[in-house]
Structures are given as C-alpha cells and as structure tokens.
C-alpha cells in the first residue's frame, strides 16, 4: 500500500538523550490525523525529522514512497507560532509569499503572479484585507491563519502542522477545522499536532498517541481509548477521565 507518510523505526536524540524511540507511523492518503501526547513527548521533533530539519539517529521517513528530499514540492509545513519573531519588519502578504520561495528557486524574487497567489490563499483563511498589515499587529489567531495561508500557497499533498490551534479563539478554531476538512476532501493528507483531547474525535479521523515511543496510531474509534491515553499521559488520570466523561456525552 502507498502511504502518504511512512515512518519506520525513527529514533531521534539531542546529545544522546533519545526524544523519539523506535517510532513507526503509517498514514494512508486523504487522512486527517492528530498527533497527541504530553509536553516534551517529541511531537515537534517527529515533524521536524520528517521534514529533514533534524537528522535522525536511526530510521527512515518516506512521503508517498519517496524520501522527503525528493518530495519537497508536495509537502507543506506550519511551524509552531511561537517559533518566529512576530516583530520582524515585514507584512502579511510578504510572509505568505515565502511559501513560494521553494518553487521560485535561488535568487529569483517574487513578482506579481506570486503576490496574486498569496492573496488567494489569504482569502482562503479570510485574511485578504490584512495583506498589507504589519505582522506585529496581528492577534494570535491571525498569526496562525497567516502561517496556514503560507502553507496553503505551497499547494502540497501532505501537510504537517505544529499546534495550529494554539492560542486561537473559538471562531478561528472552527474556521481552521473547516479548512483542514476541506483539504482532506481534496484528497490531501494532514498531520496536526493537537492538544485538546476532547475535540480529537470530532475533528480528526486518525490519531497518533506519542510519548517518546509510539503508544498507538490508527483510526480514532479504534485507538483513542482510555487505556491508550492512560499509557500516553501516565499519572495524569484526572485529565483522562474528564475526557472519557466528555466522550460519553
């Protein structure tokens, strides 16, 4: 079977201490998958090593059967919002245009057609009237949507998103969920680091439970069980039982 994301035996360590240990993950195409796990579980590291930003100690990652280096143009990335300086002197449209730098290649500057494309994806996240706004003057939810627009303009088949719901209000969250589900409808594969366990069954069709090791992964109804959550989150039982209460509703 051709998996959109196929991770095998992935081990990642920063200075000897392993943060991912022998992790496997197979994601079929056209799936919206949540990656959940406690802080420091290695979710960001998993995404970064899938994108070739971190060299793993062992293991392999294939995107639609080929290594990432051959698939760059079909993969898009939304980093954690806090990973950049939002006081950087630039505006919204410029940031979204950065999504096209890969296609542009060395030395070529973005021109009119790139700006038109960027405006289109800004419209998709409902931010077209913010195109000339300084990025320092955006709310958290708006920053998140700008990052999403930058990923959309990459026009990829596989999307990796690191906590796209972090710090956004309820309205924005709904808008983002709708966007993700639209991507899935177009047959794209979207892997999303997600923190709110309660909304996992509602938003996603697959889930991966991660805590250094892979605890489980697969369709939500099969693997999103109290047992698996307990293993993933260890002693924090109150958290987990609140969740199961929510699921019974």
């Amino acid at each position, binding site marked *: 079977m051709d998996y959109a994301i196929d991770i095998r035996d992935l081990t990642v360590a920063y200075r000897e201490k392993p943060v991912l240990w022998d992790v496997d993950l197979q994601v079929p195409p056209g799936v919206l998958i949540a990656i959940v796990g406690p802080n420091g579980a290695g979710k960001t590291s998993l995404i970064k090593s899938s994108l070739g930003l971190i060299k793993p100690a062992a293991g392999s990652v294939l995107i639609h059967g080929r290594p990432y280096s051959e698939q*760059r143009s079909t993969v898009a990335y939304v*980093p954690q919002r806090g990973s950049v300086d939002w006081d950087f002197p*630039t505006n919204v449209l410029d940031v979204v245009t950065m999504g096209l730098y890969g296609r542009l290649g060395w*030395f070529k500057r973005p021109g009119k057609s790139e700006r038109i494309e960027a405006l289109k994806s800004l419209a998709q996240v409902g931010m077209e009237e913010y195109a000339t706004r300084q990025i320092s003057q955006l709310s958290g939810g708006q920053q998140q949507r700008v990052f999403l627009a930058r990923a959309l303009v990459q026009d990829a088949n596989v999307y990796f998103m690191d906590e796209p719901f972090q710090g956004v209000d309820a309205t924005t969250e709904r808008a983002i969920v709708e966007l993700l589900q639209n991507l899935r409808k177009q047959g794209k594969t979207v892997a999303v680091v997600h923190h709110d366990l309660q909304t996992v069954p509602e938003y996603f069709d697959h889930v991966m439970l991660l805590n250094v090791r892979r605890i489980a992964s697969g369709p939500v109804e099969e693997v999103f069980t109290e047992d698996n959550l307990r293993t993933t989150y260890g002693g924090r039982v109150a958290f987990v039982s609140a969740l199961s209460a929510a699921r019974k509703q």
Partner: protein
Amino acid sequence: MIDLLTNLFSDYTLRTVALGSALLGITAGSLGGFALLRRQSLLGDAISHAALPGIAIAFLLTGSKAPLVLILGAGIAGWIGAALISVVTTQTRIKYDSALGIMLSVFFGFGLVLLTYIQRQPDANQAGLNSFLFGQAAALIEQDVFLIFVIGSVVILLIALFWKEFKLLSFDSDFLGTLGYPIRTLDYLLTTLFVVAIVIGLQTVGVVLMSAMIIAPAAAARQWTDRLGLMIFLAGIFGAFSGVGGALTSSLIPALPTGPTIVLIVSAIVLISLLFAPNRGLVFRRVRDWQAGKRLRVDAVLVDLYTLASQHSSAEYPHSERVLDVMSSISGPAHQTLKVLKDLDLAIPIDSTHWSLTPEGVLRAERVIERQFGGDS
C-alpha cells in the same frame, strides 16, 4: 563647519578618509540589520574582539602592516571565534551568552598579550598596531579605501543577490530549510559576510567599539520603518553618516580617537530614533497613550451625562458639574473634559456649572454604550 566642507572637497586626505568611512558605515550598517534581527547583536562584539590576535599574528608572521595582510589575519581569527561559539553552544551545555563572553575575553586577552609582546620588540616597525584598539581614521590611505571599497561592494552585492534567502533565514530558518535551501551554508555565508564587514572597519573604528558601528545604526533604523528593505537601507545611511562624521572630526582634532567619536555620533542617532520615531518612538507612544486616555475620559463623561439625563424626561436635561465629578468612572474633575466636549459640539454649558448634551452628544453616547455593552463585536 564651512571650513570643514571646503576642506572636504579640496583636501585629498580628508576626502579619502571620508569616503573610506562612508563605505565602512554602509557595509557595517546593512549587515548589522540582519544581525539585529537574528538576535546576534553580541556576536559582533565577540567577533571584533576575537579579531585582535589575528591582526597581531598576521604581523608577527609576515612582518608586514599591509592592510590586506592584517585584514586577512583579523578575518580568520574573527571567523574562528564565531565558529567556536557555534561549536561550543551546540556541543556542550554552555549557553550562547556564556560562550560569547568566554570567546570575547579569551581572544581579546590573548590579542593584548601579543600586542604588548610586539611593542617590546626592538625594531620600530610595530608602531601603529595599537591604533587597532580604538581606531584611527586619519591613518586611512587611498590603498585602504580601495580595499574597503572592493570588499564592501562584494558584501553589498551578495546581500542583494541572496536577499530573499537571507530574509527568510532571519525570519524562519526552519521553514527555509523545509523548502530545500541549505540553511547551514546560508548561515555560514551570512556570518562570514558579518565577519568581513567587521574586520574591514577595525583599523578605522577599532576592535573595542566596532560592534557599536554594526548594531547601533540597525537599532536606530528599526525604529523608523516596518519594512526590511528600508530598514537595511536606513541602517547603511546611518552607518555612513556616523562613520564620516566621526572620521572627519577625529582627523581634524589629532588627540581624538576615531572609534569613540563615531560611537558618540551613532549614539545620538539611536537616542533620537528611540525618542522621536513615529509609531515605535517613546514620544509617539506617550502621545498615543495620552490621546487614548483623553478619548476614554470623553466617552466616560458623555455616558455619565446621558445616564443622568435618562432619569429625566429629556435626554438633553442639564446637570451640574459636581455630580459629574463624583460620578465619573475615571478619576479627577470633569471640567477639562467638558470643555473638550463643548469643542466637539457634544455638550453645551447651560450656565457656569450646568451642562447638557447636544442631540449629537446623545447619538454619540448611545453609540459608546452600544459598543461597551452591546455584546461582542
């Protein structure tokens, strides 16, 4: 002043000095813009101090004081310093700022020892190396300026060529990496340009204060604009201006070292920018806060008048100032604010102490109330 200007056009030495320091300022300022945005302000300080032993060793090995030789030595040492900082922070538990401090003091200390040793040597050739500490623009000769011009142009050209790559490297290097660009190599390239921009200024500005020449123009430029291109351009201009100003002043007054003079001028530019730049400047922010405060007071008194009047038959029913003083949710007497309301035609005085809303005031008050209490917008 007029003297200075006429001298500038007629005096060959002065012209050389001015041109050299202008080119230096442009190069240092524009590289400094990137360093500032990448939070590497202190790296410039470490690199310039680390360059000192390179200058001394280059002299000891070759016995030459040719600018190219000394700059090469400075560049190699500065670059090794920068690379060591990067190795130490990634390979050990030592933090970035500690690594900077260690490298700066070790290299600089070693450089001072070498300089002292060179000065003890019997031959007279060593004279002038000391000026690398605080800089001596007056010593710039045509040959130096030509070298600065060539190196500076290459640096600026490379910035223009790699503009989009350097921009994304500075804003979100991981994202640039996922697009297939070699971020390590680009990082080394930008750091190398940084080292180059620093070492070509060492003779003029000196190792001790060169970092100010790098960072201060950029910090000032950041205040005036929210566009990267304009910021880098302004940083270059500020750098050139303070370079020329400092170099000329110090060439005319023999006892004045160049580095400190340049730093004084650039500090003045920074101070002005911090205070008076639109949007980001302190004064602007104060004024904006003050205006926001005034608007809040206006709205508060307006709503108070409206609330009082709504207890009567007419919305324009007059009320005494003293009631408003007590009532206002914002502290202080209402008199000043009422006068503002009068200027805006929102309220009119009925007699010396009684005030009433105008129809326009009523409308505005209703809008304010709606905005404050009418659900979320």
